[in-house]
């Protein structure tokens, strides 16, 4: 019997090639997207799940409760030590302090090699490797990093620095300050960890490296690279944790700080997903992807069910005859299932091929190294296939099998009898709804990104090159500046800590005009020289720029400061501003127009700009792009002559600003692709449906044409139906999309409004695509010779 089912199924598909290929393509696209999204989601969920007792591992983090709540994944440097020594709930606690942009020098005879690692170098307490599962393949776990001057690196780094030589015992110099001897080699890091450091050095060398012994006891500042991890003892309760952290604050802070500072524990499994604490992937986006994947599979299924039921109408006669010949409903049911199984299997093979082809592109997009997890994936694929097979196969099977044979036989089973038509309408509406939601989403993300990338940031970001300043003694800085200014094509040169918009920021408390109480907001300090305003095109709205100087004697602030103080900009001029715990006080001499100091995701902070040569770590050069290549070459030459021991690198400011929107761009590409696929599947479905309609209406069209109907009149027979369905879908999709995108835009402090134009564009687009699909097929039907179509009945 089964052989018979398969034979018939195969023959049926061969006879209905169009139906079979439309179903296969649609389904394959849907399943392929499902496979990819499934892989993506499981990949992100697998982050840092390979550590032993991972449910007991936490990271300490800082919260400031003042005007608003501020959070940092970093903690004051002494916190980890205090947590370990003064409290008992932690089994193991380790501090790990990471510095990026560090220079590593390796000397071998006269040969000097310089390296810079994006992931930085971490001063680490040895317990770190008891908490997290990063095994050593060489070296003694009991002793590494215990004594000062030791380092452990991954196999990859060892190979990069020393080739095939044994790296153990080799020495490297960090930032031309401290030497470290390698005493251990770590197994290469797995892809699915956020702890990306590959070079760990003894914590004992911290003071020597920073040249600042006070850091070890500084409870007042938080460097975001300073982290503390702990593995709690078994059975520690939340109440115990809260009591411990409360005591920590009580012991180390006084006065208002007692109410401001909070320390909390972030579970390991939250770290990858919490963007507030430097996590990469907001779970919200994973959920969004999950739903898009689900939508795509549903569209593909809907498509398939749709075609299968439409096609089943043409099978009514066959079903009738079979019943007369003694087939039971079960037989018919399984026959339809056999057919859908066949299609699904073919689609599955195509889908797997597509997924393999697309994976490298997805990896490139996310800069990840995902691979298919065959085990999990096969469960997913098998379950999906079974669902698809039964959804698509059982409907026609059950419906057709139900009819009395003579009804089916008369082949006068109309759409109405089979009930399928209204079902089919619902399905088409579902498909249209899904594609419209995706289209609206795409339009909104594109508009927002376009807004972000072209909107006035309040400062000039074009043609500005940023170079690092590894050393800042006055003499070097002033010669360097002169030499840069002499280079042809250079318009302005400014020393600063960072550009106006940067991911690296210093924030401090403020006292205004000798008020008794400090302000309840903090200020973002931008250390920069007097050319900062000119280089970045910042506009003064009141007062003047500060005079050239090396130390902070005057401040320029932004409008947000005035707004926070509820004062007019010009009224700030001449008033005293104190920052860094009143260690720096100076009058305000100018107010600049607000500029975006983060991305559009964040609010503009109150900012003060002040000179202080100690804080300069970057030189910003506004240049003329006409001769960019030669100018850039001159920069490199001058820089290398000034800092012969350092590592040259440069970045254009607009490139680094683009990085703020990396995730948005990634999302956009994905959603564009998925929306495109959803539309493609929808169109395939439409084409198929119109084809079946055309077959069923061949006679009607023939008669109409004989009676003198024009082609347009015939087209309207098809068009009317779909136009109405499209409108219904639009009415359902609009609020859904509005809701979803409203939530997406909420993450942007500065965002585009969701206006009616967006919805209009979406429906217009869908309408055009649907119209092309429908009319192409209906024109074929309308042009057919009437006599031929009449005879075919």
């Amino acid at each position, binding site marked *: *019997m089964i052989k*018979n089912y398969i034979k*018939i199924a195969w*023959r*049926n598909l061969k*006879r209905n090639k169009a139906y079979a290929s439309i179903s296969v393509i649609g389904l394959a696209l849907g399943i392929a997207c499902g496979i990819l999204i499934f892989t993506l989601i499981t990949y992100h969920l697998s982050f840092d799940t390979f550590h032993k007792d991972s449910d007991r591992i936490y990271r300490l983090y800082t919260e400031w409760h003042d005007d608003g709540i501020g959070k940092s994944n970093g903690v004051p440097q002494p916190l980890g030590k205090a947590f370990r020594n003064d409290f008992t709930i932690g089994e193991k606690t380790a501090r790990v302090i990471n510095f990026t942009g560090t220079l590593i020098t390796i000397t071998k005879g006269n040969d000097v090699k310089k390296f810079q690692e994006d992931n930085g170098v971490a001063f680490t307490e040895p317990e770190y490797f008891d908490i997290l599962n990063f095994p050593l393949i060489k070296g003694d776990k009991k002793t590494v990093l215990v004594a000062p001057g030791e380092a452990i690196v991954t196999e990859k780094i060892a190979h990069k620095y020393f080739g095939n030589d044994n790296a153990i015992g080799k020495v490297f110099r960090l930032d031309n300050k401290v030497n470290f001897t390698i005493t251990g080699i770590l197994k290469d890091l797995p892809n699915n960890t956020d702890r990306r450091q590959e070079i760990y050095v003894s914590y004992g060398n911290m003071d020597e490296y920073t040249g600042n012994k006070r850091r070890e006891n500084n409870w007042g500042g938080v460097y975001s690279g300073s982290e503390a991890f702990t593995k709690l003892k078994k059975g520690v309760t939340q109440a115990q944790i809260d009591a411990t952290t409360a005591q920590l604050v009580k012991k180390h802070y006084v006065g208002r700080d007692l109410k401001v500072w909070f320390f909390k524990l972030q579970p390991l499994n939250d770290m990858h997903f919490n963007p507030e604490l430097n996590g990469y992937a907001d779970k919200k986006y994973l959920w969004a992807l999950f739903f898009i994947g689900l939508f795509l599979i549903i569209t593909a299924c809907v498509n398939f069910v749709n075609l299968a039921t439409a096609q089943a109408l043409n099978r009514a*006669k*066959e079903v*009738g*005859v*079979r*019943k*007369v*010949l*003694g*087939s*039971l*409903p079960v*037989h018919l049911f399984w026959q339809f299932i056999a057919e859908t199984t066949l299609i699904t299997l073919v689609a599955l093979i195509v889908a797997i091929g597509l997924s393999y082809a697309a994976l490298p592109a997805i990896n490139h997009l996310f800069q990840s190294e995902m691979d298919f997890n065959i085990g999990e994936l096969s469960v997913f694929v098998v379950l999906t296939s079974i669902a698809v097979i039964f959804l698509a196969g059982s409907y026609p099977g059950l419906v057709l099998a139900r009819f*009395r*044979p*003579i*009804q089916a*036989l008369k082949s006068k089973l109309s759409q109405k009898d089979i009930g399928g038509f209204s079902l089919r309408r619902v399905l088409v509406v579902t498909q249209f709804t899904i594609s419209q939601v995706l289209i609206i989403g795409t339009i909104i993300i594109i508009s927002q990104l376009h807004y972000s990338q072209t909107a006035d940031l309040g400062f000039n970001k074009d043609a500005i090159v940023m170079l690092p300043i590894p050393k800042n003694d006055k003499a070097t800085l002033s010669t360097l500046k002169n030499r840069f200014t002499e280079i042809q094509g250079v318009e302005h040169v400014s020393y600063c800590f960072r550009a106006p918009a940067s991911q690296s920021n210093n924030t401090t408390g403020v006292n205004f005009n000798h008020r008794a109480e400090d302000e309840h907001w903090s200020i973002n300090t931008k250390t920069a020289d007097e050319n900062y305003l000119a280089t970045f095109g910042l506009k003064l709205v009141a007062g003047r720029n500060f005079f050239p100087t090396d130390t902070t004697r005057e401040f320029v602030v932004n409008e947000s400061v005035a707004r926070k103080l509820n004062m007019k900009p010009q009224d700030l001029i001449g008033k005293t501003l104190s920052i860094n715990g009143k260690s720096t006080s100076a009058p305000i001499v100018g107010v600049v127009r607000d500029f975006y100091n983060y991305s559009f995701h964040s609010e503009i902070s109150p900012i003060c700009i002040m000179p202080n040569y100690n804080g300069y770590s970057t030189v910003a050069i506004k240049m003329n792009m006409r001769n960019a290549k030669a100018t850039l070459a001159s920069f490199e030459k001058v820089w290398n002559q000034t800092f012969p021991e350092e590592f040259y690198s440069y970045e254009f400011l607009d490139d680094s600003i683009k990085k703020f929107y990396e995730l948005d761009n990634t999302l956009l590409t994905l959603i564009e692709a998925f929306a495109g696929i959803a539309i493609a599947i929808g169109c395939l479905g439409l084409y198929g449906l119109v084809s079946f309609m055309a077959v069923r209406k061949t006679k009607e069209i023939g008669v109409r044409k004989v009676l003198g109907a024009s082609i347009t009149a015939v087209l309207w027979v098809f068009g009317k139906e779909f136009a109405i369905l499209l409108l219904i879908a639009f009415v359902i999709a609009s609020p859904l999309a509005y809701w979803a995108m409203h939530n997406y835009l909420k993450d942007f402090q500065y965002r585009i409004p969701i206006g009616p134009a967006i919805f209009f564009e979406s429906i217009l687009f869908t309408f055009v695509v649907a119209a092309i699909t429908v009319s192409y097929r209906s024109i074929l039907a309308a042009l057919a010779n009437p006599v031929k179509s009449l005879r075919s009945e």
Partner: protein
Amino acid sequence: MLSLQHISKYYQVSGLKNYVLNDLSLEVDEGEFISIMGPSGSGKSTLLNVIGMLDDPSDGYHYFAGHAVHQLKEKQRSALYKQYIGFVFQAYHLIDELTVYENIETPLIYQDFKSSERKAMVADILDKFNIVGKKDLFPAQLSGGQQQLVGIARALIAKPKMLLADEPTGNLNSKQGEEIMELFRKLNREDKVTIIQVTHSEKNAEYGTRIINLLDGKIASSKKL
């Protein structure tokens, strides 16, 4: 073997009951060969469909081989049908997707015959109907008459106890028609198959043992030969 009592069948047309069969009663004994005649639209096909349990009457009692058909469930009816009845359609109703061979074989599949048995039986009947050469063709490749022959072969393959035939010779030439009628007569006499056929031809009707004339859904006359 078959008893119809006060059978009615009507269609609701704009609120009015349009009777196709009107309070019709009929007894058929085993071994009879009945020819049903009547003008077009008088309800002949409908009556045959009701007898063959392919269509439900609106009213009345229907007994077949000792079962009260009007009380049976679909599944039981289907089983009863499989066990007793072969049906030849006015419009052939072959399955387009299957070859001649497979069309004839299908009832055997549904009746769970073994593959080897099926082969023998189909070969036998192809031979009897002289269509061995056509066995691998699809219905669309056959003439109307040939399709009708396949339809009859398919109805007879499982050796039914009752054969229902709706204008079996409608598309055949008179010689072919005669051959089929001879075959029916032989089946009726030698194999004791009960036959009910609908026909427009007086001559073919005479092969039967009883002729029933239908008019407006009622039996107008019944004549034993």
